[in-house]
C-alpha cells in the first residue's frame, strides 16, 4: 500500500496538560509505520520546542529531549508557524536545534525546523491525507 501523508498539529504548551507529551508518543510509534510524517507547531504549541526547558519546579517529566530523537526516526519535516512565534516574542533562535541526516545528500546534517507563515502552513495542511490534532 502506498504511504500516506500524516500531519501532527501541536497546538498546546508542553506543560499544563498532557497533550504535547502524549502527542510525541504517537509520532514516535507512528514513525515505525513508514508513512510520510510532518509535524506542525502553532499557537502555544511553539513553546514545546523551546530550548533549555527545566521542569524541576513543577515536578513533571521533562520530555523535551525526546524531540532530538525525531531525526533518527526519519521525522525531518517540522514546521513552526511564524505568526505564533512572533505573537509570543519568540524567534527560531529560541528553539532547540533539531536536525536529521539526509541520506540523499551523503548523510549531511540538515535542519529539520522550518519557520513558515500561516499561509504556507495552510498549503502544507492542504497536502496531507491524515491530520492528527493535539
Amino acid at each position, binding site marked *: 500500500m502506498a504511504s500516506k501523508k500524516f500531519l501532527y498539529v501541536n497546538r498546546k504548551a508542553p506543560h499544563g496538560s498532557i*497533550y504535547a507529551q502524549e502527542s510525541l508518543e*504517537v509520532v514516535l510509534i507512528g514513525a*515505525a*509505520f513508514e508513512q510520510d510524517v510532518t509535524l506542525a507547531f502553532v499557537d502555544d504549541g511553539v513553546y514545546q520546542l523551546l530550548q533549555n526547558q527545566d521542569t524541576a519546579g513543577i515536578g513533571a517529566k521533562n520530555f523535551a529531549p525526546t524531540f532530538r530523537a525525531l531525526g533518527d526516526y526519519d521525522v525531518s519535516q517540522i514546521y513552526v508557524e511564524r505568526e505564533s512565534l512572533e505573537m509570543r516574542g519568540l524567534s527560531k533562535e529560541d528553539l532547540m536545534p533539531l536536525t536529521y541526516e539526509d541520506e540523499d545528500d551523503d548523510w549531511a546534517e540538515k535542519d529539520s525546523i522550518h519557520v513558515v507563515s500561516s499561509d504556507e502552513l495552510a498549503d502544507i495542511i492542504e497536502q496531507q491525507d*491524515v491530520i*492528527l490534532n*493535539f
Partner: protein
Amino acid sequence: MKFGILINEGPYTHQASDSAYHFTEAALRAGHQVVRVFFYHDGVNNGTRLSVPPQDDRNISERWSALGQKYDLELILCVAAAQRRGLLDEDEAKRAGKDGSNMAPGFQISGLGQLIDAGIQADRLIVFGD
C-alpha cells in the same frame, strides 16, 4: 466511505465523546464503515464500566458498549494512556498487581499502532477533542 474515529477527551467534561458518538452512530446507520474508534488522552475514561451518572442523564460508556455490540465496532483504548489513568482490563490488572479491572464490555486495550493503522486504512480520520 471508511471512517476512523479518534476521541481525545473523557466523558461529560467535554462534548467530544458525545459528538463522536453521534457522528459514528449516524455514519454507521447511513451504511458507512467505521474501521475503528480509538480512545486517547483522557478519552480512555470513556471505557470505564464503573461510571454511575444520574438516572436522567445519558450513560456515555454504556452507550458506546451498546453501539459497539450492535455494529461489531472496534473500541480501542490506548494501553499507555489507559495505564496512566487506571483503566485496566483483567490481563493488565493482573500484570500490574491491581485488585480489579474496570473496562466496559466491548472495549479492548491495544497500542498506538492501532491509531496509525486506522489513519492508513480509513478514507477519513476524524479527531474529536478539545
